């Protein structure tokens, strides 16, 4: 069923994209003033003697021309070596490896929650367009879209603390595999906050797709066969609405991978958003490059997965 040629072409495209990302991030980083030395020593870097500075530059590898640095980096990546953090000397690979699961789980959980709520509410609204339930759900989704995430996040943290004396666990990240409850106490609330906007978007798409699909010719055919409304909804309307919903979910999920920084700040989650944000503030090139590359890889993978999913869901795109 898999079309290998298609997959090959897609993989090649993905590779080119990633190479592009690599080059762009490299160039972008170097347009920002300040270098690794000022980042790591702060104002104390002013006290360095030229010899000290030169030796540090050599240590950080920033004394070489930029293309040499780029090349060194790319060839490192090819060997799975993302370099060392300038600020704490840890290997970027290990930093990314420890923060990746947090962000991925955060994104996956909020996508799951968001999609579940979004689809259910969207169908609810779409199956009775114009009714009170429709207006209500639509209104709620608009509010969900409109509240800035940091306001919602802070509100959740504050309310939990004030009213319930509860604070989501901020200790060492507990992987799901170790303890479900321990993991949930860290991930659940931030996921819920992220899920709000996600659900609102999914709801809106589901609703409009539902309304549109309900008008399709084949739905009329199905009704003409005497099927019950529930059957028509499940087998015909919803099944065809899956594709746009999957697309949207995929896009949103992709964004989420690189867009969890605010929630990670507020809930003190050691994810990639925070890693990236801190690294950018610190001018920690290797970490920024590594994190961006990994996020881009994830994004590209998600896209590939969505495409693959499509081809599984939609018989028209399946290779025959």
């Amino acid at each position, binding site marked *: 069923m898999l079309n290998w040629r298609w997959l090959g072409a897609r993989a090649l495209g993905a590779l080119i994209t990633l190479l592009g990302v690599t080059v762009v991030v490299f160039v972008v980083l170097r347009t920002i003033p300040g270098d690794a030395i000022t980042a790591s020593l702060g104002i104390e870097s002013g006290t360095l003697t030229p010899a000290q500075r030169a030796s540090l530059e050599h240590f950080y590898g920033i004394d070489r021309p930029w293309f040499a640095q780029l090349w060194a980096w790319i060839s490192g990546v090819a060997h799975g070596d993302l370099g060392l953090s300038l600020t704490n000397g840890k290997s970027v690979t290990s930093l990314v490896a420890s923060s990746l699961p947090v962000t991925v789980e955060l994104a996956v959980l909020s996508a799951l929650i968001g999609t579940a709520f979004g689809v259910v509410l969207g169908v609810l609204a779409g199956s009775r*367009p114009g009714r009170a339930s429709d207006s209500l759900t639509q209104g709620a989704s608009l509010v969900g879209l409109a509240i800035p995430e940091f306001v919602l996040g802070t509100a959740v943290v504050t309310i939990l603390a004030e009213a319930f004396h509860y604070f989501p666990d901020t200790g060492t990240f507990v992987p799901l595999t170790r303890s479900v409850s321990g993991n949930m106490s860290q991930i659940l609330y931030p996921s819920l906050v992220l899920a709000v906007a996600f659900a609102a978007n999914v709801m809106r798409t589901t609703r409009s797709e539902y309304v549109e699909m*309900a*008008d*399709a*010719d*084949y739905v*009329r*055919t*199905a*009704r*003409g*066969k*005497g*099927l*019950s409304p529930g*059957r028509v909804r499940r*087998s*015909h309307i919803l*099944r*065809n609405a899956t594709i746009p919903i999957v697309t949207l979910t995929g896009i949103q999920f992709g964004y989420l991978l690189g867009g969890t920084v605010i929630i990670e700040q507020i809930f003190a989650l050691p994810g990639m958003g925070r890693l990236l944000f801190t690294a950018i503030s610190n001018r920690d090139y290797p970490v920024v490059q590594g994190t961006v590359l990994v996020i881009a890889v994830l994004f590209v993978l998600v896209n590939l997965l969505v495409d693959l999913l499509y081809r599984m*869901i*939609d*018989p*028209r795109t399946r290779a*025959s």
Partner: protein
Amino acid sequence: MSEPILAVRGLHTAIRTPSGPLEILRGVDLEVDRGETLAVVGESGSGKSFTALSIAGLLPAGAEVTSGQVLLEGRDLVALREPERRTVRGAEVGMVYQDPMTSLNPMMRIGRQVTEGLRAHGWSKDAARDRAVTVLGEVGLPSPQALMRLYPHQLSGGMRQRVLIACAIAPRPKVLIADEPTTALDVTIQQQIIQLVARLRDEYGIAVVWITHDLGVVARIADRVAVVYAGRVTELARTRALFATPHHPYTDGLLRSLPTPGDPHQAPLPQIGGSPVALSALPPGCPFAPRCAQRQDRCDTEEPPLIDRAGSRAACWVPREDWRAPSAGVTSRA
């Protein structure tokens, strides 16, 4: 005269529009007997599809039958509540649609699309499957077993239309309504579909309502014809009678405007002047009056009902005998 299997009496259907409700059907009368084909002809927008959808109870959101009856073997379908109506739909009245490309669910295997209607009407899984295979064979599709597992996009237009027909006739309905089932197809395929439906009609003894705008098709298949204009039936007659002596100037104009064999290079084709009226701006009297050469004063004020005229029924105040000239309803200049 035996009771027709399907009779439509004074059917009015309206739809909600941004500028208020709009009457699309303004009193449609039809009837068709068992084993017979009724052709419904008319220009685009005259209300043919609405008639079909009103009969099947499949009107789009915002549209509803406001008065009139749809009698299936004497039982008024309009009066039924939706759950009962559903038991009729598909089981007793089957529908085939104009566009075979969009009328099948692209995400569902052919087999399932044929069987789901049967299952909805209480067929067991196996029985439905067997029936589906049989019926796919009957509509002339090769290797029905294998076909069951295909998706619509793997079939050509003609094959898809056959699948739609199979879906419709699988539960052995009493009436088959076909809304322009061949318009989207090539002539050679159209010919095959016409033959197929005729054969099925005879084998199953069902009544067929065939909607078309092609008078050639009418001539080939229909026992009876209903001509629709601006949401009403303007003429209802047996096919031969209608072609021989149309009693409504509109029907007359339609027939004359067809290219005829002979030397076509000689004279221009006769044509009906003017353009169809908009349903939202109907004139007070006969809706055809503004285009009609036989028009009398009365036509501008009073809308004619269907009047019996020598075995046919036509909605025209002016009897054919009083027409000014046989072709006067028709102008011949472009």
